[in-house]
């Protein structure tokens, strides 16, 4: 499986994206671009369309109108091999979504074997390397159900990394975790960012956004209300809606 990649094209380009669920217009014209190595945090109230936007990037949701280009490839074009493009995009879910019937090693190996066609030895080597990277080498033969939430999420990150993706999408990766387990997952993400990974992160962790993000985007009602460097957007937002949102979560 090979796809024509334009190395100079930005990892993600979205133009005038609209998404309807039935009558409900959830995304109402999104323009959005992510550069190589950039870390973008998406914030906004519940139901503002953050998850939907993220899921349109790897076509887990079908955009109703507009264009989504991944490394210059238009994935809204029906001729595009979306499965191939998806191997370039790692995705991490709020609920981890590890495969419960497989051990950690097999979780990390299965897509390498069945999608990339790597042999078992090679897939095992990559799996071990990525598991070491998230600090869970000793859990290689465990079943996911025997891991804590934080460990499961780190395995999920390792699983995505095994495909050697060019970019990573995170949809509230710490929202399902007990407070004391959030730190270990954010640490792994911070290291990823420092290693130069392109990342889009939907999160409510404002400290993480402040420290790690290159850019923060505030969404509300299916549109991007405001975006900018974290310091500016989180400390001195210009829009009234952004101010209201930030005040509300501060009080929490």
């Amino acid at each position, binding site marked *: 499986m090979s796809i024509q990649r334009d190395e100079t094209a930005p990892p993600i380009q979205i133009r005038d994206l609209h998404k309807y669920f039935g009558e409900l217009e959830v995304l109402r014209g999104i323009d959005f671009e992510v550069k190589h190595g950039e870390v973008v945090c998406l914030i906004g109230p519940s139901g503002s369309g953050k998850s939907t936007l993220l899921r349109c990037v790897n076509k887990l949701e079908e955009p109703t109108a507009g264009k989504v280009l991944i490394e210059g490839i238009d994935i809204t074009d029906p001729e595009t091999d979306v499965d191939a493009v998806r191997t370039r995009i790692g995705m991490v879910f709020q609920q981890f979504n590890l495969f419960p019937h497989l051990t950690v090693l097999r979780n990390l190996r299965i897509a390498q074997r069945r*999608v990339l066609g790597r042999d078992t030895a090679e897939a095992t080597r990559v799996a071990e390397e990525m598991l070491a990277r998230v600090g869970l080498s000793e859990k290689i033969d465990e079943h996911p159900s025997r891991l804590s939430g934080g460990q499961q999420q780190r395995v999920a990150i390792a699983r*995505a990394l095994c495909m050697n993706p060019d970019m990573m999408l995170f949809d509230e990766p710490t929202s399902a975790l007990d407070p004391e387990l959030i730190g270990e997952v954010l640490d792994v993400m911070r290291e990823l960012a420092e290693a130069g990974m392109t990342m889009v992160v939907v999160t409510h962790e404002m400290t993480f956004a402040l420290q790690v993000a290159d850019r923060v985007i505030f969404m509300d009602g299916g549109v991007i209300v405001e975006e900018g460097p974290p310091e500016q957007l989180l400390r001195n937002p210009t829009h009234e809606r952004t101010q209201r949102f930030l005040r509300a979560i501060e009080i929490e």
Partner: protein
Amino acid sequence: MKRSTRQKVIRYSLYGVLVLVVAIFAIFADWERIGRSFFNVEIAVDMFPEVLTVAARNTITYTALAFIFGLVLALVLALMKLSSIKAYRWLAIVYIELFRGLPALVTIIFVAFAIPIAFPGVSIPGGALGQGTIGLGIVAAAYMSETIRAGIEAVPRGQMEAARSLGMSWGKAMTYIILPQAFRIIIPPLTNELVLLIKDTSLFFVLGTTPATKELTKFGRDLMNSKFNGTPLIVIALVYLAITLPLTYLVARLEKRTAAAR
């Protein structure tokens, strides 16, 4: 009367009624005749080893073939019913409702006799019994497809999404991620289907058979007729139970284990 005394009286009266009924039955029943017609040792011994080496073996073979054929067909139907293409969904629904709505015997007779009459050139291997097996598999598929579909739907949506986001095609995600989890969930109900299927092979008594292709019911019934005695039916009943009871017990254990794993 005190509450506890009253309960004791009720309890003993219930035992008393039971003892009375059994006693009346024991006194008035013609034991000699019952023994002769249902528990004739000579006739029973005479049935061995054929009742096992031929009849039980055939029953198991027909069941296994119908189950495998039905399972493959059921999987296709389940996937059709979950398909995003409306025509496939409708086809699956029509199939399932049709064959669950008809008596299994009608389907078996249709496949075994009506089709060969309509298409004289067409011959399905195994003759009437091969066709009967296919007929039974067709019926079993209708039931099992609903079980499989429920199993697939019980796997959380996030599993398919995680698999797809790793670049797996829909088919690969189904094969390696969804179906292995679905089948774990549905092993107990599928084993139940297997028990039902074992019993349903008795419907094959309507199909033409040779001594070598008789299944348990036909075997017992033919012997009953030729010896003019009920013993063969008792023997095959015991053989059926020897096959189905362990399976039923297994289902109960599997269900307990699945419940514990939740």
